[in-house]
């Protein structure tokens, strides 16, 4: 039971890396980044290549995240903001990128599923109350928790974080105060993309890197963010841990239809409280 909970937590924190970026992007810019799953996949692929070339998993994770972050930042700066589109059109734009990244990743890494090896340090399992649990998954929980704390500190205790919070509340007001919210937006987008990519590498040893991962992961990210509340970091954490647990226990109880449970959760939330558990009603 404890093992299952830990399993759910580790998957949940992985989802948090994904969902927090998506949630912030929506909160600040009103864009649902449909290519967010693609960022996760790209990160996994880049991380795989970098760690193969350099022999270092962590370098792979860092660079995988950074490259994805750069891609995200450039996309926001030159495409999403360049044309003054309605929010819906920006979302469609991100959807176009799903196709592009899908093709490019297949071009460079091939159609076969690839696997990332765990860093040697985190191999093996440890004993928890009599059951063995993989060290790596424990590491994911710790990493995820640290990042959650860092993000919270960033949002609550720094000036930029305050600007982001203000921007989520009332973007026009922030601009009116003379703050360059556009630069911050690009930064938030890049940060979200970085975390998705980083998550992709970190999740790599467990999930691998394969074609079709982008859409599978996107769905989970959307569910997390809708359940938790678009625009809320706490909501993203709550949503991702909830969904991580639901997914894990769902797979244990109804192996074939675990996914359906998750979607039903999303549908229920969308219908009863569209702004999510911790989101602001719009």
């Amino acid at each position: 039971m404890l093992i299952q909970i830990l399993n759910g937590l580790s998957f949940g924190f992985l989802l948090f890396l994904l969902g927090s970026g998506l949630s912030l992007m929506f909160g600040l810019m009103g864009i649902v980044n449909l290519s967010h799953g693609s960022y996760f996949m790209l990160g996994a692929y880049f991380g795989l290549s970098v760690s193969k070339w350099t022999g270092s998993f962590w370098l792979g994770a860092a660079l995988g995240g950074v490259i994805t972050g750069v891609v995200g930042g450039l996309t926001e700066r030159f495409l999403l903001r360049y044309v003054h589109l309605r929010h819906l059109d920006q979302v469609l734009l991100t959807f176009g990128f799903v196709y592009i990244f899908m093709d490019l990743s297949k071009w460079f890494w091939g159609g076969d599923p690839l696997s990332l090896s765990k860093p040697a340090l985190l191999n093996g399992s440890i004993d928890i109350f009599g059951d063995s649990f993989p060290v790596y998954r424990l590491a994911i929980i710790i990493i995820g928790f640290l990042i959650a704390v860092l993000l919270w500190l960033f949002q609550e205790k720094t000036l930029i974080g305050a600007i982001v919070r203000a921007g989520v509340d009332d973007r026009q007001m922030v601009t009116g105060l003379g703050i360059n919210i556009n630069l911050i937006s690009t930064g938030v987008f890049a940060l979200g993309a970085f975390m998705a990519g980083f998550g992709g590498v970190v999740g790599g040893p467990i999930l691998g890197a394969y074609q079709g991962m982008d859409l599978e992961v996107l769905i989970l990210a959307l569910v997390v963010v809708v359940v938790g509340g678009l625009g809320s970091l706490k909501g993203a954490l709550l949503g991702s841990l909830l969904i991580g647990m639901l997914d894990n226990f769902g797979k244990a109880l109804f192996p074939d239809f675990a996914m359906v449970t998750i979607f039903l959760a999303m549908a229920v939330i969308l219908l009863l409280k569209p702004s999510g558990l911790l989101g602001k009603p719009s």
Partner: protein
Amino acid sequence: MNRGKSIAIPLILLVLIIVPLFLPTYSLNLLTLILIFGIFAASLDLLVGYTGLYSLGHAAFWGTGAYLIGILSTRGLITNFLPLFLLAILAVAIVATIFGALATKVTGIYFLMITFCFNQVLFVIAWKWRAVTRGDDGIPGIVRPDLGISLNLGDELNFYYFCLLFFLASAWTMVRITESPFCKALVGIRDSESRMQTLGFPTRMFKLLCFVVSGLFAGVAGILSAYYNGFVSPLDLSLVLSGEGLIMNIIGGVGTLWGPIVGAAVITLLKHLVSGYTVHWPLIVGGIFILVVMFARGGIAGALKERWKR
């Protein structure tokens, strides 16, 4: 403009009826596929262009229709086309009503996400419920419809005319719908739902009706595609298919019905042409889509309408 229409329509009809007699099989089949996707894209336009509800889950109806045909016709219990068709359409109607009743509670981004979500539920069911759907193996061996008359629909030319009949009937019906007061109300809802509500329109009921009607035609397209391919698989319920429908709509120009049909033709032709030279079709279609959204949001229909104004 109207004079142009009254020449164009008979001309197009003539072309659709006469030209296929002289086409080689490959081109004929491509034309059949265009007709099928034309129905699909146009049906989505009722939702997207006229009611303003952008759906990423339209493949749900195509796939339901296709799978019902696949499941029912390969069991050998029913062989006649009419009951197969009616059962498949009934299934689509049920799915559309359930999804629609829930999805029309929200709009905009949330509508996009919930339709995506419902689509994925069906996709996962098709993938996992191997007993019925054979999972990712798909259901092969779907034979062409038996109409009870001595017409062999295995012959590609015959099958083309069969699909043409459905295409014309669907297109005609959808055009009549767009000319109806019902559709005017839908446009009103698209422009301002609150205003329509103040005027006393039952907007949710109208949106639901549109959702179901749109889904039914998409189901027809799916049914035809099952016969066209002789095969049905989870791809018929995929996000990629839903996305293609949306792309056809936007490239063709939403809110016109004929725009998305043109978009369907363009995308289908491009896909088959490009696939002869490169595997990088997704890259190309993604790129075109992005360019259209950024620079030519009205699509082909929008661009043409601009030219005709002068």
